């Protein structure tokens, strides 16, 4: 990041390559739309570039990056809420692809292997469980689960205290446990359910 601050184009490219997947992943789960997540990720990288001179050596870059991402995502969610488009009706990606109805039609016509269907259903269930969380709980879960951030770093990204993050994550994980109760209670992995023939 120090090289980026000193206007190195190669360093910035490396930064984009290193973080783009993680950033788009978190934003996609946060916003619920892969296309929009990519747009927002580009906005985040633009802001990183614009603010490069303000970067303080020693600050953890990922914390800085996700702080910007959190702000960008919050603004986007507010805009979406104003437009009453909080939940996009069409998804360009996800377990059921860009056309979930076609996917389900194929699944019901028995042309799809049972295991594949079960796994897709499970993914959809997990996705819905994540989407059922509030914005802040979702962000805290994503940063903890996929970025492996400690409570202190999550607190810095979200502008909250570590104690608030502790409570937030406890409630979020309680909600996830309830939403995924069928899998949680059986203790089985989604997609690994046996079909009627025991296959």
């Amino acid at each position, binding site marked *: 990041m120090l090289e980026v601050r000193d206007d190195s184009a190669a360093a*910035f*490219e490396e930064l984009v*390559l290193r973080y783009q997947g993680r950033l788009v992943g978190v934003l996609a789960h946060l916003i619920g739309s*892969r296309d929009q997540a990519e747009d927002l990720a*580009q906005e985040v990288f633009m802001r990183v570039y614009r603010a490069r001179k303000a970067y303080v050596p020693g600050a953890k870059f990922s914390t800085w990056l996700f702080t910007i991402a959190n702000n960008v995502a919050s603004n986007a969610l507010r805009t979406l809420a104003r437009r009453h488009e909080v939940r996009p009706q069409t998804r360009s990606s996800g377990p059921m692809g860009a056309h979930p109805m076609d996917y389900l039609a194929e699944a019901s016509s028995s042309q799809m292997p049972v295991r594949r269907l079960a796994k897709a259903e499970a993914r959809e269930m*997990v*996705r819905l469980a994540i989407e059922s969380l509030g914005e802040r709980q979702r962000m805290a879960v994503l940063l903890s689960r996929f970025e492996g951030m400690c409570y202190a770093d999550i607190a810095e990204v979200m502008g909250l205290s570590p104690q608030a993050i*502790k409570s937030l994550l*406890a409630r979020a994980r309680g909600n996830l446990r309830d939403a995924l109760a069928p899998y*949680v209670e059986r203790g089985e992995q989604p997609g690994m359910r046996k079909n009627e023939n025991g296959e």
Partner: protein
Amino acid sequence: MSSDANQPELTHDPALLDEQLVAYLDGELDEETARLIETRAESDPKLQERLQEFGRAWELLNQLEQAETAGSFTEATLEMVAIEAEAEAQLREAERPRLRRRRRAMIGAGLLLAGVIGALAGAGLRPDPNRPLLEKLPVIENVDQYIQILDENETAGQSIEFLRKLHEAKLFATEDEGNNEEDKDEIR
């Protein structure tokens, strides 16, 4: 209840207990509380089950798709940044003459200010040419009378003596003349 009265207890508040269990799973608990949870979980099947439920729900998140960005994303992002960098450079270039003008104006204003301060300081230090005339004004005002007296008394010594007497009599003196030693010397 704990069998040992000195043994610290886990909270009975379900919400706080969940916080502690989740923090334990995340490795965010202090060593003492973590050990307490482990000890309790060994003898409390309900607590053990609760921990497992939290853990299993967390593991299920692995089912979420990991984002894989296409190469076009990287290209598009870098292109956007390159355009931004170019615009930034153009803006800097466009601002350069304005900045130069502003710098020149500031230098000019600084020089002007320095000149004014210098002129004021010089005026303060330079001696006033009118000052000796002002100081000798009483003598100048009465010079005709002095000349007349000198004409009437032909002897220079007598005249000077007469003038000294006049001066001592302060017939022509102004209020502050008595303090002016220079005038006295002049008369002598």
